[in-house]
């Protein structure tokens, strides 16, 4: 890719990153809602539900960071070993 093409790719990547960030956020909302909210006796979150959501978000963020690190390592190792067999 020449510099102009790289700039274009770069700008597409930035859009994708924003989209992916929003996706991570929305997944957190949905997953933690699904796991922590199971009663609809009240209109507002109970304090128990709220703290479950907080721990859930924390744990998922830490989990994603860890998974991202391992993924990078494995990806790098695989690239050095010559990529996926088919490439």
């Amino acid at each position: 890719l020449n510099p102009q093409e790289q700039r274009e790719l770069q700008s597409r990547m930035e859009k994708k990153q924003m989209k992916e960030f929003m996706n991570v956020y929305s997944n957190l909302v949905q997953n933690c809602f699904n796991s922590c909210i199971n009663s609809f006796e009240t209109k507002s979150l109970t304090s128990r539900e709220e703290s479950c959501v907080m721990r859930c978000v924390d744990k998922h963020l830490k989990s994603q960071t860890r998974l991202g690190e391992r993924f990078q390592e494995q990806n790098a190792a695989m690239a050095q070993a010559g990529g996926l067999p088919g490439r």
Partner: protein
Amino acid sequence: MSFLFGGRPQISSEAKIAQAEAEIDMVSDMFSRLVNSCSKKCLDRDYREPDLNKGESVCLDRCVSKFFEVNVKVSEKMQGEASANAAGGSPFGI
């Protein structure tokens, strides 16, 4: 494809439209996730009658409330983390 045409006016038009589009996409994505979650939590799975019964209706209303609240909590939390980490630069300052 802006690099094919160059020129700022189009780029900035495109950027403004893209931003408006992104916001609409975000809201409509949230709505479809809410529909998915609240239908699962509130609708009786056996579909014995075609109408929402009282229990289902109340459950759906509260489900929307709680979904919004979770949304706010998660958003606050992620901003807190972001400003703790970076001392500035909110992830939502699109």
